[in-house]
């Protein structure tokens, strides 16, 4: 058997296979390195209004803000940062982004705290940001920043349940399907992106609400949600979980989130039903610009009265 293996290993056939594998290895490595140069350039030098700058504020933004808004797309389109800044006289930035999970919010919050001066953190929460499949599916959004700091690395490895160091050496994997990020641009005003008013009523997505009642939360997401509360307490930042208006959110979902906030000693504002007019929504979960302005006004009023009461 040993002789057989010996002959097999050194045969001409084997040489050809090795040559082929070598060609592939060299070729893919060259492409990988070239891709890394392009991606690193775009991700490290984001242009104004570029998708990357808005998307990864938690990495690039070094400006200290007194108030930050965290969350997914409903946060991004519902909180008019300038309006909050003008009314409450505190510098505000909307750090929300489409489809991001609580892990992204945690990293955004940590960056805002690190930048200094943070007084108020508003987390616009929904059950989907905590749900297991969502958290796992969206973890790849953190891949481009895998080597950026230990916390990101730790979170990615924790969610993927394995060490990703080897895989992340390949920029093709690290920046998998991120080409569009480099090309897209999004114009925002202090992080807020308005959805134009269409004049048509939004449709309620009944099927989208089917899974919202299920409490299949990702335990890592729950852990980092609790970490957010602890970090805010430690740094004397007021932390509010707010549920923005939605036509799709169910009572069960609200109860689940209330439960989560209560168990973590976090203040929760249920503003789901403050706006019901379908003309002020783009769809069941997203307010249009008119809706966002009205909601932000309501939010400011609630905050002011709440602050007065606290005083």
């Amino acid at each position, binding site marked *: *058997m040993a002789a*057989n*293996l010996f002959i*097999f290993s050194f*045969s*001409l*056939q*084997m*040489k*050809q*296979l090795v*040559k*082929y594998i070598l*060609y*592939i290895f060299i*070729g*893919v490595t060259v*492409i*990988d390195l070239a*891709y890394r140069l392009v991606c690193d350039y775009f991700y490290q030098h984001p242009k104004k209004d570029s998708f990357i700058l808005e998307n990864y504020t938690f990495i690039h933004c070094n400006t200290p803000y007194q108030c930050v808004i965290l969350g997914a797309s409903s946060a991004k389109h519902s909180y008019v940062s300038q309006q909050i800044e003008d009314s409450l006289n505190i510098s505000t930035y909307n750090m929300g982004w489409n489809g991001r999970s609580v892990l992204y919010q945690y990293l955004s919050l940590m960056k805002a705290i690190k930048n200094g001066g943070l007084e108020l953190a508003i987390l616009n929460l929904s059950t989907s940001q905590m749900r297991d499949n969502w958290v796992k*599916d969206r973890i790849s959004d953190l891949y481009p920043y895998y080597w950026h700091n230990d916390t990101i690395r730790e979170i990615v490895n924790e969610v993927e349940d394995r060490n990703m160091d080897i895989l992340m050496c*390949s920029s*093709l*994997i690290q*920046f*998998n*399907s991120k*080409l*569009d990020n480099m090309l897209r641009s999004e114009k925002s005003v202090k992080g807020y992106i308005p959805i134009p008013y269409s004049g048509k009523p939004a*449709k309620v*997505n*009944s*099927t*989208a609400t089917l899974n919202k009642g299920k409490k299949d939360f990702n335990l890592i997401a729950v852990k980092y949600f609790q970490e957010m509360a602890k970090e805010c307490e430690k740094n004397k930042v007021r932390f509010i979980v707010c549920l923005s208006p939605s036509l799709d959110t169910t009572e069960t979902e609200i109860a689940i989130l209330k439960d989560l906030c209560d168990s973590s000693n976090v203040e929760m504002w249920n503003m789901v039903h403050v706006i019901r007019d379908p003309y002020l929504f783009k769809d069941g979960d997203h307010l249009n610009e008119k809706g966002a302005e009205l909601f932000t006004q309501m939010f400011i009023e609630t905050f002011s009265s709440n602050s007065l009461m606290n005083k």
Partner: protein
Amino acid sequence: MLFNSFAFLFFFPVVCILYFALPTLRLRNLFLLAASYYFYMNWEPVYALLLLASTGITYIAALGAVKYVNKKRVILIIGIVLNLLILFFFKYFNFAAENLAAMMSWIGVSMKVPEFKVLLPVGISFYIFQALGYMIDVYRGDVKPEKNFFTYALFVSFFPQLVAGPIERSTNLLTQFYQKHKFDAEKAISGINLMLWGFFLKLVVADRCAIYVDSIYNNMGHHNGCSILLASCLFCFQLYGDFAGYSYIAIGCSRVLGFKLMDNFRRPYFFSTSVQEFWKRNHISLTSWFMDYVYYPMVGSSTKLWWWCLAIFITFFISGFWHGAAWTYVWSFSIFGFYLVICTLKDKRQRKFEKKYGLKKKEWWLWLNRVITFFLVMVALVFFRANNIEDAFTAIWQMSANCFQMPFLKGISHLGYASIGLVVLFVAEYVIEYKKVNVTNYNCIRIYSLCSIGLLALILGIGVFNGGQFIYFQF
């Protein structure tokens, strides 16, 4: 074990090295058998018993049919029935019970049906059909029964094609287990290339299209006809990428080990000029299985056109059931059956028409027929993908009534990446179809390397890595 899993990345090279390192054919076959069972048992170890049962039944039945020639018909029937019982129990029992209850309640009788809570054994339809094919071949005298149980067990369980085909014939695969394959770099390189092509089809084409298709088909009521039309077109490529991807990986794996499996796809979606041709190019191993073991025995020596048509329809109707325990599959394949009946009826007239106007060699005529065929296939596959019959009819209605609206473009980046995959797929298939390049025998290491580099870069750069299962596993 999934082909697109990290476990397979380790499993396959280890199997290859040990396989070629083993000195005797007997040891090699035993090792491949053990590897195949290990591969299968990664899903649910206990289901290996089903695989073993089906293997045992057909092995004994084939031997018995030769030994007791007078009773070979009875033995064949017993073998078929036992295998179909396994299939029925694990795949169709709940479906049959539900439908029976529904039928009873329709006539006013309420009955509580027992529910059989069990996971569908992966690839059960594939290996049972492969085993049945062998048994029928032995009965017909086309092959001699395999006396060595382990060799036969390897034929049924050969891991590259075990869970989703190609459904191999004993005349092709069984004999290859008696050849001591030498390691051949050319075969290995072309095999790896085929595997990469399969991974590309699965991860870049199928899984990317699936994101858009799922978002539309799972919220059917909220999308307009144009979105549904786009999703239905993409579903054709999803299905093709998924299944052809698996087949190419299977054929590639086998080739590295020195085996030659039958071709399962020959560019069916872009280049079929009729539904008949589509089924000659699509899922060839299953189509030929149904033709050889269902259609031709049914037609016999009959020359009656109506009987041919009925036999085609029945064959496709059964094929629908083979695909899954749901009426959507039956509808989908009945529609295909209907198309083929129409094709058979108009065949002579069309040929006459084409001859009269010299259309057969005209490119525009070919492309017109290809577009029509694609559209017909897409309509039939709406039923295949829809969650239920009502959804399928809603989709057809929406596509015909409201297709001139703006499609749903929320996941536009996914559509963009899917387009890259589809363009590469079209160019590759065009080159093979028109330039007659036989990629499988292309003896040039540099070209192979370039193809592999390109494919690997695309897979790593824009592939979807969420560990999605292959659609045909459920069959």
